[in-house]
C-alpha cells in the first residue's frame, strides 16, 4: 500500500501483464531456447560435411539463426523487461517483495543473461568463419549458448513456481525454502518441454515454408518431428505432474479460469478443445517424422497456433488459480498482506494508506468508496471493461452489496477478503451501488477517481 495505484482501464491489469508475458514466453522459451536449440542440434547431428546437402543445411541453419537472433534481441528481450515494467506499475508491492526474496537469484540471472546474449552475438557473428575444421568450436559455442539459455529458465521458474506453491517459505523465510518449492520441478520441465515443442515447430516451418531446398527437407522434418513428439510428451507428462503438485484449494478453479462464467456450464467444451488441439500437434509430429512435406506444410501453422493457444491457456490457468494470493501465505492478489487484513479490519485501510490522503480530490464518502474499491478489488475487476464490477453487483440493493462484500472470499476461493472496517465496507458498497446505477461518473478509470460533485446523494 506504499505505492500509488494505477490500473489499466478496460483491459484490466491481468490481461495486460498476461499479454506481454505470453509474448515473452513464446519468444524466450520457443525461440531463444527451442528454435536456437534446433539450430545447434542440427549443427551437431548433421552428417554431411560437404556437398549439396551440407550446403543446403548450412544455408538453412544460417537463415533460421538470423531470424531467431533478430526476434530474441528485439522483442524477446524487451518483453522480458516488459514483465518487470508492467508489474512495477500494476502490482508494485508484489514485485518489490519478490525482488527482495529472490534478489541474488535475479542477480545471477542477470549475469547469465549477459553471458547468453554475448554468446549468441559471438555465435552469430562468427558463424560463417567457424565452418570447416573449426566447426567444433561453433558446436561447442552453440551448446554453451543453449545451456545458458536453459539455465535462465531454471532460475526464473523457481520464482514463478513460488507464486503458486510457496512451500515452507511463509514460516521459514529463507531463500531456498522459497526457491525449492513443491511445484518447481514439474513446472520447469513443463517449460522446457514447451520450449522445444515451439522450437521444433518453428524449425519445421522454416524447413518447409521458408526454404525450398527439398534435398534437406525430409531429413530436417524427420529430426524435428522426433524432437516435437518427444518434447510434447515431456510437456504433457510434466503438466500432469505439475497439476498434482498444486494444492486442491487452487486446482478447484482450473476449469473456471479458462471457461469463465460465460462457459462454466460447458466443461466438456474445454476438454474437447484441448484434445482436438493435441491431435493437431501430434498429427504434425507424425507427418514430419514420416517426411511428408505436403502435410507438414499444411499442419505447421495451425499446430503452432494451437500450441501457442496451449501456452496462453497454461499461463492463464496458472495466474488465475493462484488467487486469492499473489504469494501464498503472505500477500493477497491486491497487494495487501495476509497478516495486515485482521489489523486493517479494526484500524481501517484509509487511515493507514499513505496514498489515500495524497489524492488531489475532495475526501468524502464517495472518493473513499472508490479508493477502497481501487485497492481491494481492482487487481481483477475493472469499471466498464473486462470483469466489470458493475455487472457483478447488478440487481442488488446497497445493503445486499454491503452484505456480500464480507463473504465473497468465502464463496469464491480465488477472491481475497475485504481489508477494511465496517464503515469502510459501507462506503465501498455505496460507491458500487451508485456506480451500477449510473449515478457516479469516473474522472479517471486508471486511478479510480470519481468525478466529484456530479453524483446524486
Amino acid at each position, binding site marked *: 500500500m*506504499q*505505492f*500509488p495505484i*494505477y490500473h489499466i482501464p478496460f483491459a484490466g491489469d491481468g490481461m495486460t501483464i498476461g499479454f506481454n508475458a505470453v509474448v515473452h514466453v513464446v519468444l524466450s522459451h520457443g525461440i531463444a531456447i527451442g528454435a536456437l536449440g534446433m539450430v545447434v542440434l542440427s549443427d551437431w547431428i548433421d552428417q554431411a560435411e560437404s556437398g549439396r546437402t551440407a550446403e543446403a543445411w548450412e544455408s538453412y541453419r544460417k537463415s533460421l539463426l538470423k531470424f531467431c537472433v*533478430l526476434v530474441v*534481441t*528485439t522483442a524477446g528481450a*524487451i518483453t522480458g*523487461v516488459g514483465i518487470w*515494467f*508492467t508489474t*512495477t*506499475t500494476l502490482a508494485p508491492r508484489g514485485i*518489490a*517483495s519478490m*525482488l*527482495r*526474496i529472490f534478489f*541474488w537469484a*535475479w542477480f545471477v540471472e*542477470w549475469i547469465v*543473461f*549477459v553471458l547468453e546474449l554475448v554468446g549468441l*552475438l559471438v555465435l552469430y557473428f562468427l558463424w560463417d568463419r567457424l565452418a570447416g575444421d573449426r566447426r567444433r568450436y561453433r558446436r561447442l559455442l552453440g551448446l554453451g549458448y543453449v545451456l545458458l539459455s536453459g539455465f535462465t529458465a531454471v532460475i526464473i521458474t523457481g520464482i514463478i513456481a513460488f507464486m503458486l506453491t510457496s512451500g515452507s517459505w511463509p514460516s521459514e523465510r529463507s531463500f531456498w525454502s522459497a526457491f525449492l518449492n513443491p511445484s518447481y520441478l514439474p513446472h520447469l520441465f513443463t517449460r522446457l518441454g514447451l520450449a522445444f515443442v515451439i522450437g521444433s515447430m518453428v524449425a519445421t516451418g522454416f524447413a518447409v515454408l521458408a526454404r525450398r531446398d527439398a534435398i534437406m527437407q525430409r531429413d530436417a522434418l524427420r529430426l524435428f518431428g522426433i524432437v516435437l513428439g518427444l518434447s510434447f510428451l515431456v510437456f504433457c507428462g510434466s503438466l500432469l505432474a505439475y497439476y498434482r503438485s498444486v*494444492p486442491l*484449494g487452487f*486446482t*478447484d*478453479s482450473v476449469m*473456471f479460469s479458462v471457461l469463465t*462464467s460465460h462457459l*462454466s*456450464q*460447458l466443461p466438456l467444451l474445454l476438454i474437447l478443445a484441448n484434445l482436438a488441439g493435441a491431435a493437431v500437434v501430434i498429427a504434425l509430429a507424425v507427418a514430419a517424422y514420416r517426411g511428408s512435406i505436403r502435410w507438414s506444410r499444411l499442419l505447421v501453422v495451425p499446430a503452432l497456433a494451437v500450441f501457442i493457444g496451449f501456452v496462453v491457456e497454461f499461463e492463464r490457468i496458472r495466474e488465475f488459480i493462484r488467487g*486469492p494470493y499473489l504469494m*501464498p*501465505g503472505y500477500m493477497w492478489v491486491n497487494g495487501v*498482506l495476509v*497478516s*495486515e487484513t*485482521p*489489523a*486493517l*479490519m*479494526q*484500524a481501517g485501510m484509509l487511515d*493507514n494508506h*499513505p496514498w489515500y490522503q*495524497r489524492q*488531489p480530490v475532495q475526501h468524502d464518502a464517495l472518493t473513499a468508496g472508490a479508493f477502497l474499491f481501487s485497492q481491494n478489488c481492482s487487481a481483477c475487476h475493472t469499471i466498464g471493461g473486462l470483469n466489470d464490477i458493475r455487472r457483478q453487483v*447488478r440487481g442488488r*440493493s446497497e*445493503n*445486499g452489496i454491503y452484505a456480500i462484500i464480507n463473504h465473497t*472470499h468465502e*464463496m*469464491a*476461493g*480465488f477472491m481475497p*477478503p475485504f481489508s477494511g472496517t465496517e464503515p469502510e465496507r459501507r462506503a465501498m458498497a455505496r460507491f458500487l451501488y451508485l456506480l451500477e446505477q449510473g449515478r457516479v461518473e469516473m474522472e479517471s478509470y486508471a486511478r479510480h477517481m470519481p468525478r466529484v460533485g456530479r453524483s446524486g446523494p
Partner: protein
Amino acid sequence: MSGLFDVLLDQPIPEALFRPLLFFSFMLHFFFVLLTVGSAILGVTFYVWEQWGPHERPRGWDRDFLSLFFVHKSLAVVFGVGPLLLMQVGNTIPFMTAASLFSPLWLLIIVLLIASFLLLEWVAVRPSGQRWRFLLVGLAGLTMLLAVPGIFVAVLSVTERPATWDEFLALGGRLPRELGWHWLMRYLHVLGTAILFAAAFHYFKTAEEDQHRRRILAAWMAGSIAAQFALGLALFASLGRMPQFLILFVLMVGVLAASGLMALVFRGQASRRQLSAGPVLWLLFLILTPMLLTRQMLRDAVLIPVNRQLEQNAADYERRLSPLMATGMTSPAGLHQPTPLIEPGIIYMHSCAICHSAVGNGLGKAASELDVPPEDIAAMRMSDQTLRRILLEGIPGTSMPRFGFYTAGQLEGVIAFLRGNIGLLAAPAPAPTTAPADSARGLTVFYQTCTVCHGPDGRGTALSAGFSPPPPDLTLIGFTPSRAFEVISRGYPGTMMPSFAELPESTRWGLVQVVSELYQGNEQVRGRSRQ
C-alpha cells in the same frame, strides 16, 4: 509473536555493496545506450544528408553508422536489467512511485523500444532505392527511440524529488514547471552525450581511413561538447541549490576532462592530424565516470535520508498494527491455500449457509443485513432445472448471487446436496385438507386480489414483471403448506408481497391450497382462471 513481517523491510544487499554495484552496472548500461542513441541520430541525419544533400551518389555513411546498432542495442538492453533490479531494491518506494506516477507512459516504453529497434534495423539493412519510404521509417524509428530516454529521465527526475510527488499528482501527471525545465536540460544533455560518444566511436571504428568522414565526425564531437557545456550549465542551474563540495569536485573533474577533449579535437582539426584512440578514450571515460558519479551522489544525498524515513514509517506502521493482529479476529483463510471448494457440503457452508443457514431456514448470520430476507429453502420445492437456473442467474432485486463461477460439476454437487440434505428438490408436500367452502373462498380471493401481481396462472403479470424482485413463478416454485401460510399471513419483507393477516385463517388456508395446486400443475385451477 505476531507481526506483519513485511518483506519490504528486508535488505537483501548490504549498502556498501549496493551503491558501487548500481554505479558500475548503470555505467555499462548507459555506455551502450549512448552508442545506440547516438548512432541512430547520426545514422538518420546522414541518411537525409546523403539522399537529399549535395552528393551525386550516397556514400553509405548512414549504413555504417547503423551497422552496429544491432549489437549496441542488445547490449544496452541486457545491461539495463542489472541497474533496474538494483534501483528497485535499493530505492524501492521512490523509483516505483515515480514509475507508477508516469504510467501509462512508463508502460509505453516496451512498445517504443520494440518498434524503434525493428524500424531502425530495417533502415540499416534496407535495399537501395525507395528513399522516401525509408525516410519515414527512419524518422519514425528515431522518434520512438528518442522518446525512451525522455521517459526514463522523467522517471528518474521524479524519483529523486519526493517533495514533488504531490504536486505531480495534483497536476494530473504533468511535470511541475521547474521540474519540467530540469527534465528538458537533463534529457538534452543525455542526447548530447550520446552524439559525442557515438561520433567518437564511429571515428575510430567505422570511419577508419576515411579522412573526410573523420573530419566531419570530429566536428560533431566538438559541436556536441560545446553544446554540452551550455546544457550542463543550464542543468546545473536547474538543480536549484548548490551541491556539496565533494560533488562539485567530482563534477569539475568531468568538466576538465571535457575541456581537455575539446582542446584535443580542436588541435586535431587545426593541424589536420588524426586523433589517436588512447587519449580520446581515456578522456571519454574521465567525462562519463565523474558525470555519472555526480548524478548518483546528488541522488543519494536526497534519497538516503528519504529511504531511512520510509523505513522508519514502515517500522512504525508495523508496530502500530501488530497489537491489532494479536487481538483481532483470526485471519480469514490465511493459510497457504484457500479451502478447496469441491465437496458439496463445503461449498454449501461457504456460499449458501451464510444467508440460508446450515439447515436452510433462511436465518444465516448475514440474513439480518439484507433488505430482502433469504428464503427458507428447506421449505421450498422446485425442479432441478428451476434450481439450476436460479443458481446461475440469481434473483435480481434480491441478494441471491449468480453462481456462474462454479463449473457444472460443482453446481451438480450442490444440487445433489440440496436435494439430499435440505430437501429442496423433494416431492411437493401434500395439499392441506380444507373444507370445500374454504377452498372456494380461497379461489375467489385469489382471482380478486392475488392475480393482480401473480397473474391468473401464477406466472406473474406485466405489472409485476417490473417489481424488484418480481414475484416467483408459482408454477415452478412451490412451498410447504406451513411456509406458504406464513408468507400469505406475514407478507415477504423487502418485496411487494403484503401481509394478508386481515383475512380469516380458514381463507388463508384456502389460498395455501390454491398455491399448492398451482405448483402441482392443476389444470382445473388454471383453466378456471382463464374465464
